[in-house]
């Protein structure tokens, strides 16, 4: 028995190496996949079923045992360089060069995962020490936990076989959070488009379009003065804010001050930049409705005008004709209402006269106020008061906002402060198959998704990891490729805002 085994194994020793005759015959091999028939529901030990199983198994083994046979002229040759963990090409690269590989010092190289994939596709023959590597050698030499893991390669191969362009993700090529805060144009990726944008004649503020909510938020929080034309700024925001300043200056007479306009948009009374540079109480505005009715208006103080502008005396006669100067005539009823609406003299009030000091007067006012508005005074006396004073007018949306104790947040909120973790990292940039035709490795553009590889044996990413990866990826979706032995499933976590109906 043992002897028989020995001879058998000796025969099998090189049985997966094809003879020249077999190699020659393999040139006219079919490339079709056999169709798989309908499966049965339950084994019934019938001869028919047994035969069908045997047939399927035979076909399976025929398919699996097939070896790769290629014409030598069709193979690109490469050499494995163990020290750098890359493959150096020794003959001109094929069509795959459009989406894979890189050049350095006049030589062409492939990353290990790319080389292994091309070996599996029968396009590449990699040698090491002058001997060709088998696919098994490739798996065992190219893949390791500290470089490209087997699971990462499984995902890479799966996506490549589907036609996607897959590149390693390089965190350093992404703009840093600081660069994003300043809204600096990305140095490499969007360089080409940046030039085009500069050439375009319209000064419309394009910079806010590309901003993600996080960036906007960051600016609001930390850089309130970044839009002021007075402060030194990076190129892009300046061009857009100066554009808007120009617009404002052309359209209005008195409002040449952009800071005021900006302050309207972002009401932050604490910051000094929000306050006006001018003291409006000291600037006389012409009163065109007064009884004196001057025919002319004196020129404004030259210090209020921008340099190089001179304004003479202005004749307002033509304007006066357009203004309705009729005196208001009120009916008796209206006059009565007007009179009642006016404040009564508080000193004539008996209760007020009874007050001996200011404190008592304030108390009286508070008492009267409470009585008039039906606001239960005891609710407002303690340290804890209701969230909203019913006497204060407020819109429904604002009220909902005010009484929501737990406010909703978005995925990127606070993500910039999170430190990157060792456990979770983005592995691949993935570009869609239809982009292959005009794909450029030097300028790949924005990826379709970014891929993070994990396993069903490992943990589910926590919110921290999801936030951190989403922030790192910017506006590109992060997809988790979960490897379960042979199977790969793709999952993604998306930001979701609960819809809210507000009826005013």
């Amino acid at each position, binding site marked *: 028995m*043992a002897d028989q*085994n*020995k001879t058998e*194994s000796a025969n*099998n*020793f090189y*049985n*997966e190496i094809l003879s*020249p005759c077999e*190699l*020659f015959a393999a040139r006219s091999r*079919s*490339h079709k*996949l056999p169709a798989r028939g309908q*499966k*049965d*529901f*339950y*084994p019934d030990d019938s001869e028919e079923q047994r035969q*069908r*199983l045997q047939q*399927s198994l035979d076909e399976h*083994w025929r*398919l*699996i045992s*097939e*070896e*790769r*046979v*290629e*014409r*030598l*002229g069709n193979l690109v040759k490469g050499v494995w360089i*163990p020290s750098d963990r890359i493959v150096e090409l020794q003959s001109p690269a094929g069509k795959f060069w459009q989406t894979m590989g890189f050049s350095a010092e006049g030589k062409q190289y492939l990353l290990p995962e790319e080389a292994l994939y091309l*070996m*599996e*596709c*029968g396009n590449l*023959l990699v040698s*090491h020490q*002058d*001997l060709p590597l*088998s*696919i*098994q050698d490739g*798996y*065992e*030499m190219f893949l*390791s*936990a500290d470089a490209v893991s*087997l699971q990462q390669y499984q995902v890479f*191969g799966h996506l490549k*076989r589907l*036609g996607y362009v897959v590149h390693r993700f390089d965190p350093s090529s992404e703009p840093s959070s600081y660069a994003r805060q300043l809204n600096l144009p990305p140095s490499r990726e969007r360089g080409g488009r940046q030039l085009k944008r500069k050439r375009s004649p319209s000064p419309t503020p394009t910079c806010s379009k590309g901003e993600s909510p996080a960036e906007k938020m960051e600016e609001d929080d930390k850089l309130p003065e970044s839009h002021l034309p007075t402060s030194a700024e990076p190129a892009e925001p300046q061009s857009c804010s100066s554009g808007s300043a120009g617009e404002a200056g052309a359209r209005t007479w008195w409002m040449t001050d952009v800071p005021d306009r900006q302050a309207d948009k972002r009401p932050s009374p604490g910051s000094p930049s929000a306050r006006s540079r001018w003291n409006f109480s000291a600037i006389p505005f012409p009163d065109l409705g007064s009884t004196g009715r001057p025919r002319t208006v004196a020129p404004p103080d030259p210090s209020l005008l921008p340099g190089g502008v001179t304004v003479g005396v202005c004749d307002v006669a033509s304007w006066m004709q357009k203004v309705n100067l009729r005196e208001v005539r009120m009916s008796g009823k209206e006059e009565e209402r007007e009179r009642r609406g006016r404040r009564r003299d508080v000193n004539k009030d008996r209760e007020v006269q009874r007050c001996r000091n200011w404190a008592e007067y304030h108390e009286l006012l508070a008492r009267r106020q409470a009585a008039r508005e039906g606001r239960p005074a005891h609710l407002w006396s303690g340290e804890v008061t209701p969230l909203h004073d019913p006497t204060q007018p407020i819109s429904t949306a604002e009220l909902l906002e005010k009484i929501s104790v737990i406010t909703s947040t978005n995925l990127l909120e606070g993500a910039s402060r999170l430190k990157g973790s060792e456990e979770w990292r983005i592995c691949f940039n993935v570009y869609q198959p239809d982009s292959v035709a005009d794909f450029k490795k030097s300028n790949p553009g924005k990826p379709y998704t970014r891929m993070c590889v994990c396993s*069903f044996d490992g943990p589910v990413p926590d919110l921290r990891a999801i936030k951190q990866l989403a922030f790192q990826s910017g506006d590109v979706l992060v997809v988790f490729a*979960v490897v*379960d*032995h*042979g*199977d790969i499933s793709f999952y993604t976590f998306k930001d979701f805002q609960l819809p809210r109906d507000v009826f005013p």
Partner: protein
Amino acid sequence: MEAPPCRQLGELQPEQERSSSPVVGLSLCDSAPLLWRIQDLKAVRSSGLVGALLGALPRTPRQNIRLGRPLLLLPEEERLLRERHSAAALPARNQDAVGTELQQRYEEEEQRSYEEQSILALEDRRSALLRAMTSSSGSESGVGSDEALQGRLLALGQSFTFPRSALAVQLSTARAGLSHCQEARAFLQVDWPIREQDSPRREARYQVFRDLRGRGFFLTSAGKFGGDFLVYPGDPLRFHAHFIAVCLTLDESICMLDVLCVARLGSNVKKTVLLCSPAPDGPVHYTSLQWSGMV
């Protein structure tokens, strides 16, 4: 765990058992157990272990519907093989041991292959020519065309060259080497790399796997179905899976919502969910979940 690596070979198992089931050679790639040689794949399948194919299929590499070698084993499959003493971890390729002798031999082989293939190619061309001539000369007179045929064949024999670039070469899937003979494997199976299998969950998974396999079921991983294993009544090539096995230790409490989740999912894919818990030193308890159908 059971067999300390220093034990003598002869003690490991009875002689006849070893010869009945060939020792399967495993290669570790990034610590995953992979099978490469077709005889190993067949041996594993014949003992009812399915595994998962990972590689591109040589015939049509750019698709994911049918994949090719290598075959990845589940940790449970690997452990079962180990307990039956029918698998051995093959040593990794010795990267520096390649001598000039081997390189020379490879070049000789290639040269021999080239010569043989050029003869085959010439033969191929000659028979094609012969076929073309005889079919066209059928209408003409016999003697003159026969001479012409001989002349053409002679000319072909002299002018024919088989270009080097047309040489068909093999990109081997498995590595050829000395580690594949039976004796070497028997020796190697003692040297099993230690892999952690210590968590109670893993242990439960393994007990369930072994029990279900022992009952003749075929199992594959069921991550996509939210369970541990997909359970097939026969070879997955011919049969649909009937059950989704969810492995739990006996004292593990499970949340009602989770039970509902797996039951709901199972009924959606027309499979029955099995909650499987191995009792200590005893049988595995199976509980199936089904919608009662009552409204």
